[in-house]
C-alpha cells in the first residue's frame, strides 16, 4: 500500500495547477536531497527488483533501456566503492529522471490481478 508502487497523491497534485505550482519545488528539492541523482540513478533504478513481478517487467524493457540500466547500476556501485558521488556532469538531470519501469510494472500487476480474477471466478447459470 505504501512505497514507490503504492497509493500516490501525485496524479491529483499534477491535475491541479495551483497545487503543482506550490509542490513542484518541494518535490524537486526532496528528490535532489535523496542523493540518488548524484550517483547517476533514475528513480526507477531504486525499485526493489527481487520479485517475479518486477523481473517480468524488466524483461519488457527495450534492449537499449536494459543496457542503460545495467550501466547506471555498475557506475553507481563503482562510485559507492570509491565512497564519493560522481562528478557533477554525470548527475542525472531532472529531465531524464523519468519513470521508465513503473508503467511496465503496473501493466504486469494488472495482468496478474486479471489472472487471479479469472482463476477465482464463480460462474453462475442465468
Amino acid at each position, binding site marked *: 500500500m505504501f512505497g514507490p508502487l503504492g497509493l500516490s497523491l501525485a496524479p491529483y497534485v499534477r491535475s491541479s495547477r495551483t497545487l503543482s505550482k506550490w509542490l513542484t519545488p518541494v518535490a524537486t528539492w526532496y528528490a535532489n536531497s535523496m542523493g540518488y541523482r548524484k550517483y547517476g540513478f533514475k528513480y526507477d533504478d531504486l525499485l526493489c527488483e527481487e520479485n517475479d513481478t518486477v523481473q517480468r517487467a524488466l524483461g519488457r524493457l527495450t534492449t537499449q533501456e536494459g543496457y542503460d540500466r545495467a550501466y547506471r547500476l555498475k557506475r553507481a556501485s563503482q562510485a559507492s566503492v570509491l565512497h564519493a558521488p560522481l562528478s557533477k556532469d554525470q548527475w542525472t538531470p531532472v529531465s531524464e529522471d523519468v519513470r521508465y519501469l513503473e508503467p511496465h510494472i503496473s501493466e504486469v500487476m494488472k495482468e496478474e490481478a486479471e*489472472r487471479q480474477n479469472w482463476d477465482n471466478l464463480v460462474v453462475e447459470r442465468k
Partner: protein
Amino acid sequence: MLAARASTARNAQRIARSFATVVDSTGVKVAAVDYNQPTASVTVLVKAGSRFEPKEGVANALKNFAFKSTKTRSAIGTVRESELYGGVLYSTLGREHLALTAEFLRADAPYFVDVLTSFVTSAKFTRHEFEEYVAPLVASEAEAAAHDPATRAIDAAHQLAFRSGLGSSLFAPAHNDITVADIKSYASAAFTKGNIAVVGTGIDQATLASLVEKAFAKAAAGSAASTPASKYFGGETRLESHGGPQTVFIGFGTTGAPSAELAALSAHLSTTPSVKWSQGLSPIASLPKGTSVQPVYLPYSDATLFGLLVQGTTTAGVKEAGQAAVAALKAAAKGIKAEELKSAISKAKFAAASAVDTREGLVNALGSKAFSGSEISLESTLSSLDNLGVDAFSKAAASLLSAKPTYVAIGDSHALPYADELGL
C-alpha cells in the same frame, strides 16, 4: 411413402441449391450455410497469406498473433471466456489467406463473432506479447517444418516454381529480424474491409451479416490486396536433411485458374486404394517396399502446383519409385483409356464432394470464391469434371510435362537421384 418422396424432393432441392450466396455487408463479404449442425463456426478470411507479405515470415507472425490482447479484452480474457462458453479458437495460414476461426455452440455466435472481429479491428500488437508468446511460436513452427521433409519439400518447390508471391514460405526463416512494427504495419494494410470475407457454417446468413455489419462499422475501408500475377519458373534444388524419410518432389506448375484436368490427373495417379488392404488400380500402385508416392494438387487463385511426392527409407528405393512415377505421368500424357479416365473422374468428383462435408473443406470452398463474389456451388466443379474428355486430359498432362519441372530432393543429397536420372 409420400412423406419419403417429399423428403427426397426436398433433399434434391437442397443439393441443387448453391451452398451460399455471398452478400456484401457494409463492404465485407459474408457467406453462410446452415445444415442444422449442432455446432456453428465462423471464419474470418483475410487476404493476408504469405503471398502478400512484405518481409519473410511476417504473415506467419501475424497468424500467431491472433487472439492476443485487443482493446476489448486481454489475451487471457479471450482464452478464459472462450473456455467458459466452450468454444475453440484457431488461426491457420495459407499462401493466399489467413483464416481466423471460432467453433462454438449455436447460441454463442455474438460473443465469438466479437472475439474474431475485435482482433481484426482493434488488436494492440504489444511488443511484450510478441516477445513472450508470439516469437517462440514462430520459431517452433519453423523448427517443426524444418524437421518434416514433406513440408520442407513442398515449401521449397513453391519457391522454385513461383519465386516471389506464391513462392514465399509459410514459415519464418530460422534467424529472422521480424519486429512488432512490421507485423503491425502488415496487419493495418491487410485488415481493411475489401480484404475480408466472413464465412459461417451452422449459422443463419442474415444473423451473421447483421453481427458482422455491427462489428465492422468502424473498420478501415480499403480495396483488396493485389500482387503481380503468378508466373511459373521451375528449377532443381537438393537439400541436406538428417532423420526422416528420403524425399523427392517432382512438380509442375501452371498459371491461370485451376482446371479440372489436373484434379483428374491427381486422382488418376493417386495410390490411395479405395478398399483397405488392397493395392489399388493406380498406374503407380506397384512400388518398391518402403516407398510411397503421393500426388500433390495445390490449386491457387491464379496458378496451380501439381506434383508427386516420393518418399522412402532408402535412396535406391526412392530412385526406383521416382522412375515409376515419372513413367506413369508420361504414359498419362501420351494417352489414357476411356474407362481409366472415367474412374479417375469419379474419384476426383468424390474427393471434391466429400471435401465439402468437412468444415475446413467447406470453408475452403466458400472462401476461395467469396472474394470474387461469384455464386458458389458444388455443381460447377462436378460438371466441369464430368465434361472432361480423354483428349483434353492427355493434352493438359502433356502441356504440364513440356514445362521445366520443379525438382526438390531432400535427404542424403549426394545419393538421391537427379532430375534427369528419373527421366524428366
